[in-house]
């Protein structure tokens, strides 16, 4: 897991220079990327397009964004989507409380200002001049999307689980994603100086609209093959024995071929590896596997189905 110094230097110099440099760079921050992942990311950076990452839970969708931010040394702005999320929580909100408080406090001051106005119309004119004060930047509460657009040096914007949001919100995202700008009625159009690198993740709870998909590059992260998974475990769980890694990855891989409600994904494998290291295990014993099965299987039925077969599964390889 120690890249050669020259390669590390090259990666540090420009991780977005080529796909290989990107794989190298992601590896140096602890993310083992397959070629397809790296290529998609590379294209996203080159074409300045958002990237839509799909895959089952725990294959490292969110982790990819975190690692990219770490690699590029950019701030990460994260927005978790949920049902009912709307512009005021995603883009901006006026600080109503502050506005009201200020109007209250300034009431007297306004009275003074207006006291010497000769008639109603003159007072109105003066009020018109003041009105916009309360809808200006100091009263603006930026939410994740606006924050991301206002990062002048660029940033990584992670829009997590976009499939959980409403369709209306999805439509609203279109402007942000295609032009990297938003319109605030009171202020005008805000455009990003440096377009952020945008990751959208989806668990496929519902099908995303075509319009959104069309604006994004698409990356589907599948469950990894054994060799890749072993490398991931080795990089994520320092100090794990190679033999144990091989055994546990093999076991998890064979679990995935079975009909389970929830197949274990990478994060479960890594958790399990951590647990086994904490238990000072150096090889997989049936008893140990049975005791720790709840780390990789998240449903009672799955555990009940696998438990009697543990010995057989361990010997199968």
């Amino acid at each position, binding site marked *: 897991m120690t890249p050669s110094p020259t390669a590390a230097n090259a990666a540090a110099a420009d991780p977005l220079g080529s796909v290989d440099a990107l794989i190298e760079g992601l590896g140096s921050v602890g993310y083992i990327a397959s*070629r397809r992942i790296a290529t998609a990311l590379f294209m996203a950076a*080159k074409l300045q397009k958002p990237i839509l990452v799909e895959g089952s839970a725990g294959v490292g969708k969110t982790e990819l964004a975190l690692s990219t931010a770490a690699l590029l040394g950019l701030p990460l702005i994260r927005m978790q989507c949920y049902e009912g999320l709307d512009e005021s929580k995603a883009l901006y909100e006026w600080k109503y409380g502050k506005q009201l408080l200020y109007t209250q406090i300034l009431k007297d001051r306004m009275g003074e200002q207006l006291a010497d106005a000769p008639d109603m119309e003159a007072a109105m004119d003066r009020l018109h001049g003041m009105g916009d004060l309360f809808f200006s930047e100091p009263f603006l509460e930026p939410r994740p999307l606006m924050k991301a657009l206002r990062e002048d040096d660029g940033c990584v914007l992670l829009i997590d689980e976009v499939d959980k949001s409403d369709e209306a919100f999805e439509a609203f995202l279109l402007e942000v994603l295609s032009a990297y700008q938003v319109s605030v009625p009171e202020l005008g159009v805000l455009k990003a100086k440096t377009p952020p690198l945008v990751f959208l993740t989806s668990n496929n709870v519902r099908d995303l609209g075509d319009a959104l998909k069309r604006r994004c590059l*698409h990356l589907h992260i599948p469950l990894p093959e054994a060799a890749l998974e072993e490398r991931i475990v080795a990089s994520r769980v320092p100090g794990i024995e190679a033999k144990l890694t091989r055994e546990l990855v093999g076991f998890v891989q064979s679990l995935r071929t079975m009909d389970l409600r929830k197949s274990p994904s990478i994060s479960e494998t890594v958790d399990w590896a951590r647990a086994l290291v904490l238990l000072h295990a150096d090889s997989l014993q049936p008893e140990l596997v049975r005791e720790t099965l709840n780390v990789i299987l998240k449903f009672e039925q799955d555990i009940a189905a696998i438990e009697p077969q543990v010995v057989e599964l361990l010997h199968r390889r």
Partner: protein
Amino acid sequence: MQHTLEQFFRALRASDVRVSPAEAIDASRAAAVVGYADRDLFRDALCATLAKSSDEVARFDAVFETFFARDAARPPASPSRSEEESQSEGGAQDEGPSEADMAAAEGSPLAQAVLQGDVAAIQQSMESAAARAGVSEIRLSTQRSRLTRRLLEEMGLEEIERIIANARRLPGGEGEGLADRLEAARRGLFEQAQAYVARQHDLYAAGSARELREERLARKQLNADGGVDPVDYELMAALVKKMAKRLAAKYSRRRHVAHKGHLDVRKTLRRSLAYGGVPFDIQFKVKKVDKPSIVAICDVSKSVAAAAQFLLTFLYSLNEVVDRLEAFAFSGRLISVNDILDDHGVEQAIFKVLQEIGFQQTDYGRALQDFSEQHLDKLDRRTTVIVLGDGRSNFADPRLDLMKEIHDRSRAVIWLNPEPESYWAQGDSVMYRYARFCHVAKQCGTLEQLERIIDDVLRSYVPH
């Protein structure tokens, strides 16, 4: 290269990967960035810009492999073989075609190319002939032999045939060698053209064949003899699922309306009392939504045997996408099948339901009685009841009184009958008498009809 990319996009569209002009532009830009040297890099870059779901990725990979096949430019085996043959025969003959041969092949560029073993020229001529013959317009596998023939004609096969015939006619068997060589080359060309057309078929027609099958399936009568062909079963299940998912998407969209609201002045003022009249805590209007629920009752008796399996598939898919669905199945008696649908895969669940109560004598009266005795509390003014059945009660008491009670208690009763309306009063059908207590009673014989009706149901009868 741009032209090749365009062709590639067409091939993708044909296998159901949607490529919009915007995506095509992106793909071209991507290709320009990564270049064409590294095949894997090129593929991954195009894949990221073009394929927008995991299904599409799989299809993309398949199309890419076929379209940019590595052996597309393999030299035809026949010319070299014939050359070897001629060499072993004549021994003294030189490597290239003889002057006499070339003279005979005069006027036919194809024959010359074949004799010279010029692979590139043959390939080129095939491509341009294919464009003239419109090979990429292929839609059906039955068009293959005709298009192969046309492709060869466009390439100038007739010329070769003429030269062969001329050579054979030469006195003293002088032209036999040339004729044999050309004959072999012609066979090679034919094979090549066949392979080419087959490849085009895979690229451009495979998708449309599936579409055709799906379309036909959607219109097929469900209670036709034998029901759905087992071959089509998988496709049918996928189709039903797709419909259910589409319906669920529309349906959930409507539920979200509740979250949008305008300023609720009254509430805000009330709250402001706590802050000395300053409206500090802003309240928004929230539209209250009734949580809708659906009760589905499915007939699985003998008379609807063919449709039962399909109706259950639909019930199963609906159960997956609608949160609050109570599902019942009956033939003689009525049971709740919620647990079965929840715990098993679709095929197993259907099998289990049919095993438990399927294919017995129908008794609508009995089933309604079971329902009202045990499950009537599931009905309230927010519930939509969907009955899937033929309304044939074997001359038993239809218990219209219970049907009326169900009608009165629920928000809407919808009856979907696989039989056409003209049968509703014939034989033991009591459909007409039940229909009085239904808000909607419709024939639902095909998948297409079913989707339309369920869409209607969700739109107008599910509260929102």
